[in-house]
C-alpha cells in the first residue's frame, strides 16, 4: 500500500465503512461491532428522551393553572413518576457511556473493539428489555410512586410497581455490563504506547464512571429485588405493618442513586474536556488534576447518600457527617471548571455548535453545582427539601449538565460517525433554543422553591402562577431546541456535506481513522500521539483533513509554532 493510500485510509472520507460493511436487519440486530451498538443505543436513548420529554410537556401544561389543570391528581402523579423513571433509568444513565462511549472509547484507545463485544450486545438487549418493562408498566396501571419508589406507599399502591421496578432492575444489569466492559477495555486494550496519563480525559471519566456502575448498581439491584419480593410475597423488610423499616429502603435506594448521579455527570464532564481542548486548539490545562478529580468524585460520591435523607429522621450526628462530606464532593467538580476556564484562556476559539454547548455546560453546570451546596447545608435544606428548589437543582445538573454535554458530544463526533457535516448555523440555533428555553424553564423554579412551592404537587397556591407559566413556556422552547437539534443531525447523516477523517483538528486517536471508520476501526498501524498536542496538527489540502505533522510530505511540512507566545 502506498503512502498516499495509507494516508487516505487514515484521514480520508470512506465510502466503504462500518455502516455498509454488511447489510440486512440481522447484521445490525446481531452485530458485535461497538460502533453499530453505539448507534443503536443512540437511537434508543433518544427515543426515551423524547417520550419522557413529552410527559414533561404534559406536566408543564397542566401546571399552567394553579388549580384544576387538565390532568386528574392521580394522572398527574403518574406523569411525573413516569417522566422521572424513564428519564433516569432509560435515558440519562445509559446515555453518554452507552451511546457515545461505546462508539468512541475503543477508537480513542487505538483498539479494534471493546474487550467483550458479546457482553456489549447483551447490554444493549438488556436496555431494550428493561425499557420494555417500563413501557409495560406504563401501559398497564402506570406508576404513581415517584421515580424513587419510596415505601410504604410503593408497597400499598395498586399501580404497576413490580413491572417498573423489574424494568429498572434489568436496566441496572445493562449498566453493570457496560461498566465491566469499559473498565476491562481501558485496562487491557490501550495502545502499547498509551500510558494512563496519555489517555484522553474522556476515557478517564468513562473509567471512573465504570467504577461507580460496578460498585453501586448491584445495590440498587438488590433493593429493587427486595421491593418486588415485598410486593409479591410480603417479606416485611421495608413494610412497617410487618415489622419492617421504610427508612431502610431510602438508605438502600440512595446508596445507589447518589453515586448514580455521578454516573450521569462524569462522562459529560469528560466530553467537555475534549470539546474545550479541541475547540480552543490548546492543551488541556491541569490534565492530571482533571484525571484524578474524576476518580475522586467517583469515590467521594459513595459517602454522601444521606443528604437525601436529611429530613427522614436519621440521627443528628449522621446528618452532620453527610453534610460535611457533601461539601467536600463539590471540590473536585470545581477543580474541573477552573481547569476548563484556564484552557480557554488564550486559546484559538472556534465557536461552532459543540463549543456553544460546551460553554453552555460550564455556565449551567456551575449554577447547578452551586445550588447543590444550598441543599447540602443543613439549615437551608430544612426549608428547601421537597420544594421546587430541588427540582431546579437537579435539572440544572442533569439537563444543563449531562444533556447539554451529550448534545455537544453528539455534534462533535457526528462527522466521525457518519462522514457528513451538520449545518452549523442551525445547530447553533438549536443550542440557543436549548439554552434559553432551559433557563426560562428552570430558573423560576429556584425562586419558587425558595418561596415554598412544594414539588410533585398537582395544584398550588396562586402566588406561584407566573413562575409556573414562565416555566411552561420555557419547556416548550427547550423542547423545540431539542427537536431541532435531532432534525439537524438526522438530516446531516443522510444528506450532509461529506467530510474527511479529521475536520476539526482533533489530536486523539479516533481522529486518526477515516470518516466513517472502517469495520475494524484502524486498517493501518496506529501511531500514538499526545491527545492534546494540537501544535502538532497541520492542515493537508490534498486530503482536506487535519493530520499530524509527520504525515505531511516532508517538503511541505511547515515549521512548528509554539503554543504560547
Amino acid at each position, binding site marked *: 500500500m502506498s503512502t498516499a493510500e495509507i494516508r487516505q485510509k487514515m484521514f480520508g472520507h470512506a465510502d466503504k465503512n462500518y455502516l455498509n460493511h454488511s447489510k440486512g436487519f440481522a447484521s445490525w440486530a446481531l452485530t458485535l461491532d461497538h460502533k453499530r451498538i453505539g448507534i443503536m443505543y443512540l437511537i434508543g436513548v433518544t427515543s426515551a428522551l423524547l417520550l419522557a420529554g413529552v410527559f414533561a410537556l404534559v406536566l408543564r401544561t397542566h401546571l399552567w393553572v394553579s388549580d384544576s389543570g387538565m390532568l386528574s391528581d392521580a394522572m398527574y402523579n403518574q406523569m411525573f413518576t413516569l417522566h422521572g423513571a424513564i428519564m433516569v433509568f432509560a435515558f440519562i444513565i445509559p446515555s453518554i457511556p452507552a451511546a457515545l462511549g461505546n462508539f468512541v472509547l475503543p477508537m480513542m484507545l487505538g483498539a*479494534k473493539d471493546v474487550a467483550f463485544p458479546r*457482553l456489549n450486545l*447483551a447490554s444493549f438487549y438488556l436496555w431494550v428489555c428493561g425499557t420494555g418493562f417500563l413501557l409495560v408498566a406504563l401501559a398497564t396501571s402506570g406508576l404513581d410512586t415517584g421515580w424513587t419508589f419510596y415505601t410504604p406507599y410503593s408497597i400499598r399502591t395498586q399501580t404497576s410497581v413490580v413491572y417498573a421496578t423489574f424494568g429498572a432492575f434489568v436496566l441496572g*444489569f445493562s449498566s453493570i455490563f457496560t461498566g465491566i466492559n469499559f473498565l476491562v477495555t481501558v485496562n487491557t486494550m490501550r495502545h502499547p504506547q498509551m500510558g494512563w496519563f496519555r489517555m484522553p480525559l474522556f476515557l478517564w471519566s468513562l473509567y471512573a464512571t465504570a467504577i461507580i456502575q460496578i460498585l453501586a448498581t448491584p445495590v440498587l439491584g438488590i433493593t429493587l429485588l427486595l421491593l418486588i419480593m415485598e410486593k409479591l410475597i410480603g417479606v416485611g423488610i421495608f413494610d412497617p405493618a*410487618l415489622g*419492617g423499616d421504610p427508612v*431502610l429502603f431510602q438508605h438502600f435506594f440512595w446508596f445507589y442513586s447518589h453515586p448514580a448521579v455521578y454516573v450521569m455527570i462524569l462522562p459529560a464532564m469528560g466530553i467537555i474536556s475534549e470539546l474545550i481542548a479541541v475547540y480552543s486548539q490548546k492543551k488541556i490545562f491541569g490534565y492530571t488534576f482533571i484525571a484524578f478529580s474524576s476518580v475522586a468524585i467517583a469515590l467521594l460520591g459513595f459517602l454522601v447518600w444521606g443528604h437525601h435523607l436529611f429530613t427522614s429522621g436519621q440521627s443528628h450526628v449522621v446528618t452532620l457527617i453527610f453534610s460535611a462530606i457533601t461539601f467536600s464532593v463539590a471540590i473536585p467538580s470545581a477543580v474541573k471548571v477552573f481547569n476548563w476556564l484556564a484552557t480557554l484562556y488564550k486559546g484559538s476559539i472556534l465557536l461552532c455548535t459543540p463549543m456553544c454547548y460546551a460553554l453552555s455546560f460550564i455556565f449551567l453546570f456551575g449554577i447547578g453545582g452551586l445550588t447543590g451546596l444550598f441543599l447540602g447545608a443543613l439549615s437551608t435544606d430544612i426549608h428547601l427539601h421537597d420544594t421546587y428548589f430541588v427540582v431546579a437543582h437537579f435539572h440544572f445538573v442533569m439537563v444543563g449538565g449531562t444533556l447539554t454535554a451529550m448534545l455537544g458530544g453528539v455534534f462533535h463526533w457526528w462527522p466521525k460517525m457518519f462522514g457528513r457535516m451538520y449545518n452549523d448555523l442551525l445547530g447553533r440555533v438549536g443550542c440557543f433554543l436549548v439554552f434559553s428555553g432551559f433557563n426560562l424553564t428552570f430558573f423560576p423554579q429556584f425562586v419558587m422553591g425558595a418561596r415554598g412551592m412544594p414539588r410533585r404537587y398537582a395544584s398550588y397556591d396562586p402566588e406561584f402562577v407566573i413562575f409556573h407559566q414562565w416555566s411552561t413556556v420555557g419547556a416548550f422552547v427547550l423542547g423545540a431546541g431539542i427537536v431541532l437539534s435531532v432534525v439537524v443531525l438526522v438530516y446531516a447523516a443522510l444528506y450532509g456535506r461529506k467530510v474527511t477523517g479529521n475536520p476539526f483538528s482533533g489530536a486523539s486517536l479516533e481522529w486518526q481513522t477515516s470518516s466513517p471508520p472502517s469495520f475494524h476501526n484502524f486498517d493501518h498501524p496506529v501511531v500514538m500521539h499526545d491527545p492534546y498536542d494540537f501544535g502538532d496538527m497541520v492542515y493537508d489540502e490534498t486530503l482536506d483533513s487535519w493530520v499530524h505533522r509527520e504525515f505531511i510530505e516532508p517538503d511541505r511540512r511547515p515549521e512548528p509554532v509554539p503554543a504560547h507566545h
Partner: protein
Amino acid sequence: MAVAEPAHDTDHDHHEHGEFIAHHFDSAEQQYDSGKLGIWVFLVTEVLFFSGLFVAYTLWRSHHPEIFTQAHVFLDKVLGGINTVVLLFSSLTMAWGVRAAQMGRNRVVAQMTLITMVCAAMFLGIKAVEYSHKWDLGIKPASLWHYTGEHTAAVGPLAVSLGISDWLVTLSIIPAILLIAFVVVSVVLRLMDKPVWSTFSAGLAITVGGYFLGAVGGQLYMQASEGSSSHASRAPVVLHASSAGYQEQDHVAGQEKAVDSHAADAKAGEAHPDGNAADEHASNDHGTDAHAGDSGHGAHAVDPHLPRKEDLDQDVRIFFSIYYCMTGLHAFHILGGIAFLAWIFYRSLVGHWRPDYFGPVDYVGLYWHLVDLIWIYLFPMLYLID
C-alpha cells in the same frame, strides 16, 4: 433476564480445532488477562448484590437479637452442615477441573465438571427438603406466615404413600420431568449417532439425579432423626379424612421429650437469656386460645417438640423473610452456576481445552468459588446462631 452473564462468556470466537483468539484481541495473553479481570470485576458486583441482604441481616440482628435466637431452632444444623461439605467438595472438584484444563486433559475436566454439577444439584435437593418441611409448618415469609405449632397435612396420594410432604412432591415435579427427558433424549441421540450430544444429555440426567440424591437423603435423615434434640420434630402428619375437619394422629406418642434448651426457654416463657424480650411478647395475645393438646379448639394436636406459637415473637417472621431471601438468592445463583458448568461440560466433551486456552474454565471456577464462599457465610449466620 435476571441471570447475570459473566464476562468470560464473550472472549472467544471459536471453531473446534481452530483459532481461539477473538479478532479484536492482539494476543492470547491479552484475551486471557481481559477475561480474568472481567470475571473478577463481575464477582465484585455479585458481592455487592448480596451485600444489601447482609446489611439487612446485620441491622435486624443488632436491633432484634431475640427473634434470631427464637427462630434458628427451626433450622437443621446437620442438613446445613451436609450442604456446606457438599459445596466445599464441589469447589475442590472445580479447582481440580481447572487444573486439568490447564493441562489439556479434557476427559478429566468433563468428569470433574460433572461431579461439581451433581454436588450443586444435591445442594438444591437438600434445600428442597428443608424448604418443604418449613412450609409444612407454615413457616413462610412474613406476610404468608401461618405458623401454629402444628404440621399441615400431607394429602396427595404420592405424598401420603411416601410419607413425605406435599410441598416436596411439588418441588420435585420439574426435576423428575427433566430427569426422564434427559435420559430419553440421550438414548435417542445415541441412536441418531450423535455421541457428544448424547453424552451431554446423559450428564445432565446425572446432574438431576444429584437433586434426587440430596432430596431423598435429606428426607431419610429427617425421618430418622425425628424427636432428636437437634431440631424440632419434622415428620409430616398423615391425616384421616373426616367430615368434621381434620383429626390429627398423635405421632409423637411415646417419644422422649428431649427438647433443646432454647425451645424450652421459649416454651416456658422463663427468663430469656436476652433479657425477657420474649417474655413480653409471649404475653401478647397472638390469636385465639390455642393451647397445646386442647381438643376443644378443634381436632389439631400441637406438636410438643415445636415452640408454641404464643412463645414466638411477632417479628420472628422477619428472620424467615431474611432467611428465604438470602438462601433463595443463593440457590438461584447455584442454578445459574449449573448452567455455566453445563456449558463447560459440553466444551470439554468437544475437547476445547488446551494448555494455551483454558480461560473459560478458570472463570467459571472463580464464579463457583464465590457461590461456595457466600454459603460459607450464610451457614454460620443463619444456622449456627447459638
